[in-house]
């Protein structure tokens, strides 16, 4: 008995070791089969999301609308499940994928999708989108760069549909700019110029960058370089890393002069901006609600550019992805119907007028309902954001054995920070970033 206990506990220890080291190497292999486009017996599917507060209320409204119209007609009930913040949602979805309890549909960033694809449980949506009866007829109405983002995976197939989208803009203290007769910068040369003037006037830091990694990725593009491709090649380090160096030098020069800064312990620049310790910063349109209550008028301008030819503004936010793990064909189709509703004119109009997220359809931007909403809410991010659509780009997502697009992003962020905080030269910071990915 005692021996049995010992061997049992040893066996348990060994299996847990094996379980720890075994990697999920399943490759996506899909049997081509006909899709189902009608549902006889009612199905209920879960939608996992990370939308809290007013965003959660908007998600619940979307679900109610869907369930009472399309859902009622097609025998579908969607149940929204809040799964914490984005990182929590990611952890939970990963765990659920391993134990076979993933929902039919969930919010996901493109790099998560690239990772989820390894499990073979992500549904290719092309057969549904192109279907004669249940397809998306006005698919071209969805802003081009969002369509590209959602079909950037192997074979150019759609593994997700766009949902909550944001981009970056330039926030500035309009009262201060007006009082001092300053011109709102549209190019980076002008940002430098105005920053120097503000610094002279106030002795304070003038300009900030809320998301250091976005700065790097965007500026590499603006300087005419490339960041990565979807195969995971580190393009910004190639050909002497010219664009990346220029981007870091611009930053270094201005930080050293005391004109620019990055967020530090304060994490977000909204605090310093509202306390007038900073007069302009580039940040996400989704963050506007945090500064809307400032004591002064907040101005919103397009992201500064190097030149029109290399115009680049990063697009952000998640998409929705459909899973078929342990799901019937009816459930998969139901999930597609909900994803389609989220990306539809009605769904997107509702969501982009109830939250700080931006429209994903041209028709929503130009609709009277949306334009009236912008006037009423006086939220200029809703106009300035979509106006930059021609410059939208996304950072490619990939998942390789050695590193993923997320790792590259982190390396880029570290490069920016080591230039700013540790006085490392741009060349060295880029070299360190590349080495950390080997």
């Amino acid at each position: 008995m005692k021996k049995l206990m010992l061997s049992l506990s040893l066996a348990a220890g060994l299996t847990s070791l094996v379980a720890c080291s075994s990697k999920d190497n399943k490759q996506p292999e899909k049997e081509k089969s006909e899709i189902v486009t009608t549902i006889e017996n009612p199905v209920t599917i879960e939608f996992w999301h990370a939308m809290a507060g007013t965003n959660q209320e908007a998600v619940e409204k979307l679900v109610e609308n869907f369930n009472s119209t399309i859902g009622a007609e097609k025998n579908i009930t969607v149940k929204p499940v809040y799964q914490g913040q984005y990182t929590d949602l990611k952890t939970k979805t990963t765990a659920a994928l391993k134990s076979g309890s993933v929902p039919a549909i969930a919010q996901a960033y493109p790099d998560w999708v690239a990772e989820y694809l390894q499990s073979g449980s992500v549904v290719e949506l092309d057969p549904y989108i192109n279907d004669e009866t249940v397809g998306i007829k006005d698919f071209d109405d969805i802003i081009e760069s969002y369509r590209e983002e959602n079909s950037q995976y192997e074979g150019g197939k759609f593994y997700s549909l766009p949902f909550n989208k944001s981009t970056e803009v330039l926030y500035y203290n309009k009262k201060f700019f007006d009082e001092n007769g300053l011109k709102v910068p549209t190019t980076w040369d002008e940002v430098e110029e105005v920053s120097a003037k503000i610094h002279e006037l106030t002795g304070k830091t003038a300009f900030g960058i809320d998301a250091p990694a976005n700065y790097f990725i965007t500026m590499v593009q603006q300087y005419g370089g490339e960041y990565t491709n979807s195969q995971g090649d580190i393009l910004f380090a190639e050909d002497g890393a010219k664009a990346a160096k220029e981007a870091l030098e611009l930053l270094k020069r201005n930080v050293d002069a005391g004109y620019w800064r990055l967020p530090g312990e304060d994490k977000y620049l909204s605090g310093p901006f509202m306390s007038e310790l900073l007069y302009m910063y580039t940040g996400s349109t989704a963050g506007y609600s945090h500064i809307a209550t400032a004591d002064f008028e907040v101005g919103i301008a397009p992201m500064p550019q190097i030149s029109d030819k290399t115009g680049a503004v990063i697009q952000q936010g998640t998409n929705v992805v459909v899973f078929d793990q342990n799901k019937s064909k009816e459930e998969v189709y139901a999930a597609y119907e909900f994803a389609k509703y989220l990306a539809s004119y009605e769904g997107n109009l509702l969501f982009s007028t109830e939250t700080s997220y931006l429209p994903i359809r041209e028709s929503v931007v130009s609709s009277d309902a949306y334009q009236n909403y912008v006037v009423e809410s006086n939220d200029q991010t809703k106009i300035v954001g979509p106006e930059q659509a021609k410059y939208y780009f996304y950072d490619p997502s990939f998942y390789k054995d050695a590193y993923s697009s997320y790792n590259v992003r982190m390396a880029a962020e570290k490069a920016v920070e080591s230039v700013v905080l540790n006085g490392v030269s741009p060349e060295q910071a880029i070299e360190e970033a590349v080495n950390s990915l080997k």
Partner: protein
Amino acid sequence: MESNTKKVTSVWAKVLIYTALILGAVVMLFPFIFMLLTSLKTYAESISVPPKIFPEVAQFKNYKTAMEMAPFDVYFKNTVISSVGNTILTLFVTIFAAFSFTRYKFYGSNVIFTLLLATMMVPGEMLIIQNYQTVSAFGWIDTFQGLIIPYIANVFYIFLLRQYFMQIPEQLYKAAKIDGCSDWKYLWKIMIPNTISAIVTIAILNFIASWNAFLWPLLITNNDKMRVLTIGLTHFTNESGSQVHLQMAAATIIIIPVAIIYLFLQKYIISGVTRGGLKG
């Protein structure tokens, strides 16, 4: 004359000691006081730089707004049930395991104990996916079993209590045996009363850990009716910032029960940590 100098020195010593203690108390309490004050600020005040210590007008409505962001009453009930349930079961497991490792010399007991200790080297985060797979295979998603059972065996507590049990002299055990005392009775009449401070310490530490647990409860619940308070706290943050003032209001409400329990039981915690062995 000499006694006067002594008095003066002792007064100075007291002043020094109390200054140090007051400083220490201020440092320890500051985060809590700041949390309380922030919970009464407006959003602009809560993120202002440099930080404002006091709100201009106390915003008591923050508490109401915060409580409306999520079903905190349900979360509160669930947190109490899972923390109390988990603590009681943890105590049972800990006491019996520690007793058997102290009193019974069975074949391989040292090996098993070493193996158990070795598991302390494995970070809990690494096991969370495996535990999730197991628990979801049991069908325990959205149940109290799922919330409670996976965390009722804590090697550190077993180790701690075993050390306490080992300090009770062998002679006591033999004497009790001669008097016809069973192991069961010996455990309850001698072992536990003599190590009660350690047991209370374990109970409190476990209760606090269980009250504050976040990732596990989030993983194994999907239904709002089964969720706990810490999940409620995430409702105030999105990717571009936090509603700090509301979050602090909710945090204040959440820590009140733990603070009260700690206040009443602190003498046990302190004695449990500082007390070395057995008297007499």
